[in-house]
């Protein structure tokens, strides 16, 4: 929200994750199984963060893993799951059913309106939907208002100002200029509405190179940037790599089993892998290299999803 004018924002992952404090409202960039800020998510778990209020549109392993690790108090996404492919999000589902996280499920368009209210510096935005839906029962903060011009009854939703937005980008420079590929999902809106933006990038490059690729999020909105190759794994970060379906299968099985199997996953890939370098080693360099072969041919691309 306020502009960040430090000339050099390059930090390591540990310091980047340090921008998130216990109980913070954290916006998660990316969507579904694409460009989720997974290295930051893993680092938050390693650092033992608790009581987070996570917000976002459609999410998957990022929210589920944070919930599995006990880091989350409130979930305010429009969707958490693995689509038809791998089904419901196991840890999220369990926590919701046991009442150990507060579910404030929302709707993409409502979240968008709330972010815009924050960006505009206004106390609310009106939406036409929501009425008739039980989503309103999860959001007592919504109010009905009468349009002063038409008399129509609309729903007023308050601003959403995340404390920190976590974003993963293919390219960035040390000042914090970020290049993203489409779809940007809510990342641009999060960047403008959040108090701090913390980014990981596949590669830190020169400002000229980011400008050539196109600056999607400008440096003045960014607080810190860390270089983390495969920082979105096991989700995709095109053009570098496709998503790692076998790894997501491994995760969802462990999370569904819970108990020692989930503990083993966390130990192998998160808490017991103290750095992202150790994480990449645990996943396997061959496995990671294979995810970059999508561009060789349609057959090679399809093979990754078989």
């Amino acid at each position, binding site marked *: 929200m306020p502009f960040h004018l430090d000339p050099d924002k390059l930090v390591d992952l540990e310091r980047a994750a340090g921008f998130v404090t216990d109980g913070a409202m954290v916006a998660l960039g990316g969507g579904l199984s694409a460009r989720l800020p997974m290295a930051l998510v893993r680092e938050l778990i390693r650092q033992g963060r608790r009581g987070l209020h996570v917000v976002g549109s459609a999410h998957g392993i990022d929210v589920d893993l944070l919930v599995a690790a006990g880091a989350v108090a409130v979930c305010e996404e429009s969707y*958490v799951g693995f689509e038809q492919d791998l089904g419901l999000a196991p840890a999220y589902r369990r926590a919701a059913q046991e009442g150990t996280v507060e579910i404030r*499920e929302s709707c993409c*368009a409502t979240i968008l309106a709330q972010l815009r209210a924050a960006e505009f510096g206004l106390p609310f935005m009106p939406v036409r*939907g929501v009425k008739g839906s*039980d989503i309103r029962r999860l959001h007592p903060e919504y109010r009905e208002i009468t349009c002063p011009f038409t008399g129509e009854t609309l729903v007023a939703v308050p601003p959403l100002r995340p404390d920190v937005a976590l974003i993963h980008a293919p390219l960035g420079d040390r000042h914090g200029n970020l290049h993203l590929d489409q779809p940007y999902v809510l990342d641009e809106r999060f960047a403008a509405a959040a108090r701090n933006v913390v980014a990981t990038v596949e590669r830190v490059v020169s400002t000229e190179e980011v400008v050539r690729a196109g600056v999607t999020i400008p440096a003045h909105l960014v607080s810190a940037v860390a270089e983390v190759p495969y920082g979105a794994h096991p989700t995709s970060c095109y*053009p570098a790599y496709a998503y790692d379906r076998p790894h997501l299968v491994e995760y969802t099985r462990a999370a569904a089993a819970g108990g020692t199997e989930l503990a083993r996953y966390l130990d192998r890939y998160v808490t017991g892998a103290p750095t992202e370098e150790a994480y990449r080693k645990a996943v396997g360099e061959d496995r990671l290299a294979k995810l970059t072969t999508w561009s060789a041919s349609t057959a090679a691309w399809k093979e990754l999803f078989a």
Partner: protein
Amino acid sequence: MSFSIDEWFVVLLARTIRDREVVFHGFGSPCAQVAMHVARRTFARDMLLIEGATYAVNPEPPFIPPTGNDLSLQQGARYRMRFEEFFDAAARGDVDRMFLSGGQIDAYGNTNVTAIGPLDRPKVKLGGGGGGCNLAATVRHLTLWTTRHRSGRTLVERCDFITDMGHRTPEGSRAELGFTGGGPEWLVTELGVFDYDADGHARLRRIFPDVSLDTVRAATGFELRVAGDLRPVDPPSSAELAAVRTIDPLGVRRAEFSPEELGRTFVHGTHAACSC
């Protein structure tokens, strides 16, 4: 030429689209996704197809991947909408049709993708509605679908939670709530096809040839209203089947069906008259 239920089902979904419509699907919806591409490649050449999680306009994907947000779904698109560009267009009323499904669907086309059972301690926490809650209010027509009608748990008297509004909820009708979209127009299930009568109540119009009316009645949790002109569903054309197979070589659509349903196969001329 033989074909299976998933192929026929997708073709029926595709046929709810009219040419020159602006059409969108939600993520996690491979059947709707394949259906939109089938329509665009056969009888709806001039529709505006908006991909559900990438917002790519009229892409030509080399294949449908198992996730709704993959680069393959943007291939060939001349333009990719921003997230807000799409939602703004829908809020203005410029999107003609959206596909929606649900873990529960009631007689008035309300859908539940939030939770089964009481909200504070749900029996099953479902994934959530994405953008459906607002989109259902302003998109002109909704095509609903489910591949789990036979379970008896999907078409219910009352949704435990209404995520996306249909024609009428306990709060009132669409007109009373001031919604600009027209609500559900079709409901396609693996047993048959429903439209909605003047009350906004589902009405069976077409039935698959290997399904009896008793089967449909037993699987439907609300009053089964049947149209006077109930007929078997029309068979797929060879062009439609070819489009399904070309667009979805990985068979991602099949993930929506139970293994038992996938055993339902048909041959033109026996169960189904040829419409090639």
